[in-house]
């Protein structure tokens, strides 16, 4: 069962104003609202719990201490937080290289080489997570946000700075790439 909670909305705005005045309770509420979601997002990108924790903490610190910058962004707070998380992930890639740190041997790979015959329910979550990291940065982002984070295409469009149509097209291509990635892993 998913337990990430609903995406943020205008509910955040009164809290943001209070955080600007140094209100710790409001900061705590926003932290509780977003930390798990951001951790999950970063973990899906990096695959290492330690790195995901550090980046999620870094993202929340930046989000809640640079609210003066948020005022000028003209986007929802949730979109802003995801953008910070995305940028932190990119920075991490630059510093450490984009590598898959979970050994492939640990994954339970599907036996069939034909994607049309793959029994999706037989794929382990780890299979999917590993194959996901073979995709391009944008393809990973759109699939994680749409399916792991349960965001709508419009919300993802706001985060990625694209139109809804572009997000839908990107999602279609990303699913195709993921199928091929799973197929490639099954063949190896």
């Amino acid at each position, binding site marked *: *069962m*998913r*337990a*990430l909670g609903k995406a943020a909305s*205008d509910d955040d*705005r*009164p809290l943001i*104003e*209070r*955080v*600007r*005045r*140094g209100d*710790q309770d409001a*900061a*705590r509420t926003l*932290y509780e609202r977003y*930390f*798990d979601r951001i*951790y*999950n997002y970063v*973990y*899906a990108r990096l695959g290492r*719990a330690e790195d*995901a*924790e550090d980046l*999620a*903490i870094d993202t*929340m*610190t930046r989000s*809640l*201490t640079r609210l003066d910058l948020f005022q000028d962004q003209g986007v929802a707070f949730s979109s802003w937080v995801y953008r910070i998380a995305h940028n932190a992930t990119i920075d991490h890639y630059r510093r450490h290289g984009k590598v898959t740190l979970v050994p492939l041997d640990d994954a339970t790979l599907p036996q069939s080489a034909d994607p049309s015959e793959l029994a*999706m*329910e037989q*794929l382990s*979550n780890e299979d*999917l*997570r590993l194959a996901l990291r073979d995709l391009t940065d944008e393809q990973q982002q759109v*699939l994680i946000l749409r*399916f*792991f984070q*349960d965001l709508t295409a419009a919300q993802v469009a706001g985060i990625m700075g694209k139109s809804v149509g572009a997000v839908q097209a990107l999602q*279609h291509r990303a*699913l*195709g790439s*993921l*199928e091929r990635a*799973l197929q490639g892993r099954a063949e190896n």
Partner: protein
Amino acid sequence: MEALAERLRTVEPMAPSPAAKIRGWNLVSAAVQQSATVRSRGHSVKRLVLAAVAAAVLLVGGAVAASADSLPDSALYPIKGVVEQVRGALAFSPSDQLTYHLELAQTRLTEAEAMIARHRLDLASQALSAMDDQLGDAAALVKAEKGTDPAIAADLENRLLQAIATHDGQLARLQGQVTNPAAQSAILKARDRAAQAVQVAQTSNNNGNPSPNGKGSGNASASPHPTPKH
């Protein structure tokens, strides 16, 4: 591909360890506190600068003091406007800002009464218009505060409604005393604009919809004689 999309939806989210969450909050909390302290210092410096400027202006001399009770037909009246602007710059909290706007609205009303008594209808009309500008600013302040702190906003709204009710009573009496049609028209217009300020103040600030109490901009029959909440 549909099956793959559905399968992705069932992937269980990864949860951070409780220890990481606690460590994260400790770091975030400290950073938020530090950030608020830095901002507070910045505001303090701003206040000091403004206070110094205000002191310099207030020390200009007796002209300033003498201008306090000046009327629109007085040579000292422009100085009064400068002093009022300085006072406005020193009103920081929403409560102080509301007090500032309400006091200025009352001052303008008093000036309008004096100008009507002196048959200076042009200046009276300007004073009434300035009074309504202040009430409009006060209403906008209340509306903005609703998105920030509803409790404070409720208190500000009540104070504004009380003030407008008082002003409306004064205007109604004045309207009954004057016979000049132009003066009556100016007073009536001022009462209408004050009623509009009431509507603005009673509107929620998120999308311009009326507040849940049923009053607000959508209520075309809103009374021009506002009654404060008790």
